[in-house]
């Protein structure tokens, strides 16, 4: 295929031709092309459809500000919508498609929207989709969802890897144009650690797109030499394809590096993109400037472009946007475009300069004091209509119109700490104002210094100032000679007309929409933005904001300076969510913790459940068991009949040592621990300072100054954090040290009438663990299996004769296998968290379900555990009147009657009261099928519960549309006297 608009010259590699497809058609390009430049070289002007009106749209810019040329790239899982063609480096075999059109780009059915534009003005959705209410979810939302957005995601998981990285430097230079290169050279030559980032793949910024001389050579060549010198310096890191997207506090910058976006697929072992966090002592923003357009009727036709982009395509990519190009300008820059087009041999249809005093042109016919008032052409501009200085009209035929409305400095990053840009009259643009982030200086065009010589000098000067603050000495810093043309501009924002003149092309916001916002009193800039969506597109208003503000300023009669501007937020350019996620995706989203017996449990075919970050065995199905209840019932009954074993390593374990360890525990627990004898364990209740129960668990005294606390699995982290707060912030005077030992010990509960017999087979014989020598609540350091250090605790969660045996975590796998072998004669049964839960409900032990943050010791029937003889956290507020009232909630057991089921979350009502909030008496916290009782049972809180055993209540669960009847009983369904666990 011939590249009809390809010129001679340019910075492309003609020895490396590339093939690509757009909407299924094959085209050719060269290495060094972007998708945009290649499409233009092939004579493709129409590349997309607009968001709302589905108007035909083409390429406007040559940079990251592109609002129109958004395409879908690649195929399959790598399909990526809304990619800017101007930022897409061409690679061989690239597949690109246009978006937001059906059935084809040339003929789009939704273009009918354009005919109804009168009904689709700014804020139409605020007024249109209001009534009837029944339509909100069923009609309007699906309709809006269908119409909204441009491209679509593939729906498949992204196959590529994204990464995060960290870098440090003395000076971060953002932008590798003349100012940035000069700043980096100055700092690099002085020996500073420098990072230079630029979003382009080629250094030079505008120098790559101009016909200019720097230091006597072509500007692009000078930039290439400067970049090569910087790359050669060991103290300088040059990062192409990298965009600084945000400025955070204390010199922290976010930089997105597109490592492999220019390749068909990333190289083996490399990520596609890296989100860098750069810690910079100082930074210089040299982000350049963006040329703005001028609004006139139908100014959105494909072929109507920034003049600087037209010049850039011709000079850098040797791609003429059309064979015959007209130029519309309000400043001298348009004439520069004319000169470059003429030099490249492109035919210039006319120069339309809105200034009556426009400088003469020797390259084309000049219409001074004239404006372009309209355009025409199907799927692209064919003619423009001129309104001449004398009021006459003239048609000019052209395939493209280069528009120059003046330049806006790229101040965006200076706003990231709420800095407000300020208006500078002589260049008719906003420049950085107050509130620029500390440590960030602005250089060159980004602060309104538009000439190349000025930018070079400013880059050096800003670098010198930053180096001086860092105390880095500079011996010499010369600036090469370069072009130094003053800019003369007479602002022209929009050409009045009767049709629609576009401001924000991506969001389809027109001059009329701003008028509507003004008419409806959305006049403040921030209101204007939200009402019309002006500047809310992917370019954050880079091509539109100032135009919109100028129109609003005209309508309100204020100056632009008084109208002000909205500010910009990170990210500077659209950034994939995947880059923020980095490697934290799928199973790497957060760590998974495996208990020490995990691999053994997996061998047994256990079913696992996520418990916080832990994977715990939920039950161990046996052959023939088809329903989980069969497995769980069997595990419960086998444990109660003979013996069961369960991995309880996930419970929090906190090692507490020091002379004040006992006093410390007295403070954090509501009951007393300083009196606990060595070798004994005690149940402890921990309150928050507001008197509510925080956690419970057992704490063992292993030595005079050594305790070991256990917490619930769910609160292990929270309790440890709380204890550290108490130790460091409330009682730094106490001699006490804490360390989390949760992961250090593998701990197994061995429960059931045969528990002791099993343990006697693994505990070394010198340790007497008979009932007399090792009674209920005893604890001791022992050894097992011939000398492996271990700790034995005689504590019971199930209500059976039970022990917990702990060994160093590395012996955990061996320990469970040893216990299973030792228990074989007794038919030992491993049980999971479900059976654990059933047995603790049968025994009436509370856990996270009951300790829900609104429950007091009084509610649990444990009021006596809150000692009034000592200070403890929560003791004061636990005594509040309402919390100790006699008619408060009280923990009870519930047993379903008539074959009903207790469900957790159900609320309790007396037999004959109305079911409403006023008659709500309490709620169910835990429920289970008890194979021991042979009924559905539960635990819950009900008012005056202690005195209501035997009463029947209704359990109402309107959320699930269920109700049941249950009898209130003691929460201890099994062995209320505690004979089993003492046996």
């Amino acid at each position: 295929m011939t590249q009809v608009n390809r010129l001679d010259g340019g910075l492309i590699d003609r020895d490396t031709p590339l093939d690509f497809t757009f909407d299924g058609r094959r085209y050719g390009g060269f290495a060094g092309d972007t998708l945009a430049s290649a499409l233009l070289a092939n004579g493709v002007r129409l590349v997309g459809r607009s968001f709302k009106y589905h108007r035909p749209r083409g390429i406007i810019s040559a940079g990251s500000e592109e609002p129109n040329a958004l395409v879908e790239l690649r195929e399959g899982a790598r399909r990526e919508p809304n990619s800017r063609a101007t930022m897409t480096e061409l690679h061989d075999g690239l597949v690109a498609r246009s978006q937001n059109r059906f059935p084809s780009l040339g003929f789009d059915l939704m273009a009918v929207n354009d005919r109804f534009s009168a009904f689709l003005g700014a804020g139409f959705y605020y007024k249109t989709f209001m009534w009837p209410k029944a339509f909100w979810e069923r009609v309007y939302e699906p309709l809006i969802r269908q119409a909204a957005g441009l491209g679509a995601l593939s729906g498949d998981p992204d196959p590529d890897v994204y990464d995060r990285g960290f870098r440090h430097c003395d000076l971060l230079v953002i932008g590798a144009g003349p100012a940035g290169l000069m700043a980096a050279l100055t700092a690099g030559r002085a020996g500073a650690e420098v990072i230079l980032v630029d979003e382009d793949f080629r250094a030079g910024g505008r120098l790559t797109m101009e016909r200019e001389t720097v230091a006597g050579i072509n500007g692009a060549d000078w930039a290439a030499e400067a970049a090569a010198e910087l790359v050669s310096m060991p103290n300088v890191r040059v990062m192409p394809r990298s965009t600084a997207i945000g400025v955070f506090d204390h010199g922290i910058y976010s930089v997105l590096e597109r490592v492999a976006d220019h390749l068909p697929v990333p190289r083996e072992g490399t990520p596609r993109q890296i989100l860098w966090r750069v810690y910079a002592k100082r930074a210089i923003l040299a982000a350049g400037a963006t040329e703005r357009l001028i609004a006139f009727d139908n100014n959105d036709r494909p072929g109507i472009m920034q003049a600087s982009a037209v010049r850039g395509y011709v000079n850098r990519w040797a791609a003429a946007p059309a064979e015959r190009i007209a130029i519309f300008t309000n400043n001298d820059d348009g004439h520069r475009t004319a000169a470059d087009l003429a030099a490249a041999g492109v035919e210039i249809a006319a120069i339309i300069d809105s200034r009556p005093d426009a400088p003469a042109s020797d390259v084309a016919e000049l219409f001074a004091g004239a404006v372009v008032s309209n355009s025409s052409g199907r799927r692209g501009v064919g003619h423009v209509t001129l309104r001449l200085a004398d009021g006459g009209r003239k048609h000019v035929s052209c395939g493209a119109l280069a528009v120059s409305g003046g330049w806006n400095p790229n101040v965006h990053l200076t706003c990231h700490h709420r800095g407000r840009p300020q208006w500078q009259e002589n260049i008719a643009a906003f420049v950085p104002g107050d509130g620029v982030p500390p440590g960030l200086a602005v250089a060159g065009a980004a602060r309104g210094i538009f000439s190349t010589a000025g930018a070079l000098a400013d880059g050096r000067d800003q670098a010198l100032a930053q180096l001086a603050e860092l105390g880095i000495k500079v011996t010499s810093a010369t600036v090469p000679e370069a072009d130094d043309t003053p800019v003369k501009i007479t602002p022209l924002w929009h050409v009045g007309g009767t049709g629609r003149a576009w401001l924000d092309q991506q969001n389809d916001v027109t001059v009329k929409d701003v008028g509507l916002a003004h008419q409806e009193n959305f006049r403040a800039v921030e209101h204007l933005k939200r009402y019309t969506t002006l500047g809310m597109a992917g370019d954050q208003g880079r091509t539109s904001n100032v135009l919109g503000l100028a129109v609003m300023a005209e309508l309100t009669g204020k100056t632009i300076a008084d109208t002000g501007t909205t500010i910009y937020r990170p990210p500077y350019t659209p950034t994939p969510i995947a880059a923020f996620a980095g490697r934290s995706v799928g199973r790497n989203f957060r760590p998974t913790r495996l208990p020490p017996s995990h691999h053994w449990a997996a061998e047994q075919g256990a079913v696992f459940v996520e418990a916080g970050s832990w994977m715990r065995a939920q039950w161990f199905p046996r052959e023939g068991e088809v329903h989980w209840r069969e497995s769980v019932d069997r595990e419960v009954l086998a444990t109660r009949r003979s013996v069961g074993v369960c991995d309880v390593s996930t419970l929090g374990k906190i090692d507490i040592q020091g002379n004040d360890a006992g006093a410390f525990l007295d403070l954090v627990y509501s009951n007393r621990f300083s009196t606990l004898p060595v070798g004994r364990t005690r149940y402890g209740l921990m309150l928050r300072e507001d008197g509510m129960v925080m956690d419970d668990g057992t704490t063992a005294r292993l030595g005079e100054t050594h305790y070991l606390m256990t917490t619930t699995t769910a609160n292990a982290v929270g309790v440890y954090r709380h204890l550290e707060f108490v130790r460091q912030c409330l009682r730094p005077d106490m001699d006490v040290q804490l360390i989390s030992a949760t992961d250090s010990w593998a701990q197994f509960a061995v429960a059931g009438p045969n528990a002791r017999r099993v343990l006697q087979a693994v505990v070394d014989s010198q340790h007497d663990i008979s009932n007399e020598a090792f009674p209920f609540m005893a604890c001791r350091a022992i050894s097992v299996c011939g000398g492996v250090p271990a700790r034995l605790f005689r504590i019971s969660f199930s209500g059976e004769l039970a022990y917990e045996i702990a060994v160093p975590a590395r012996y955990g796998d061996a320990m469970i296998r040893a216990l299973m072998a030792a228990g074989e004669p007794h038919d030992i049964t491993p049980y999971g968290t479900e059976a654990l839960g059933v047995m603790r409900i049968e025994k009436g032990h509370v856990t996270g379900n009951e300790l829900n943050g609104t429950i007091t010791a009084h509610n649990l029937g444990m009021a006596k555990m809150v000692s009034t003889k000592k200070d403890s956290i929560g003791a004061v507020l636990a005594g509040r009147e309402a919390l100790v009232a006699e008619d408060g909630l009280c923990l009870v057991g519930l047993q379903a009657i008539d074959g009903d089921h207790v469900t957790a979350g159900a609320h309790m009502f007396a037999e004959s009261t109305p079911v409403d909030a006023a008659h709500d008496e309490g709620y169910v916290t835990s429920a289970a099928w008890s194979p021991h009782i042979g009924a559905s049972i539960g635990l819950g809180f009900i008012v005056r519960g202690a005195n209501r055993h035997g009463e029947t209540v209704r359990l109402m669960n309107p959320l699930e549309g269920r109700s049941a009847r249950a009898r209130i009983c003691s929460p201890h369904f099994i062995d209320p006297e505690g004979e089993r666990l003492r046996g």
Partner: protein
Amino acid sequence: MLLITCPYCGPRDESEFSCGGEAHIARPLAESSLTDAEFADYLFLRDNPKGLFLERWRHAAGCRRWFNMARDTVTHEIVEIYPMGSGPASKAGKAAHAASWRRDTAAEAASKPAHKSRAKKDKVS
């Protein structure tokens, strides 16, 4: 995103830390008999100033030590970082500490042993 200099580990990223809110809130001693409202000053009421704020921070994903930080809530400027159990040393930090309404509360008075606070009072009068 802040860059915080942990007094024990050096400069580290904010993501390693967790903020514990207002600093210098002393816990009333058990022997004091405060009203519920006075106790609430200690437990529930927290300042939320625009400007310099004395806060407690914890190097959660590091040494796990708590420390105090004087931070401007508008600019995020960190004026000083000082250990738990000590007061601010900077002029601005001292002023913020002295200006807090908390200095005059019964809860704070009740955090010091009775004889000590009486002795102090005597000195003043």
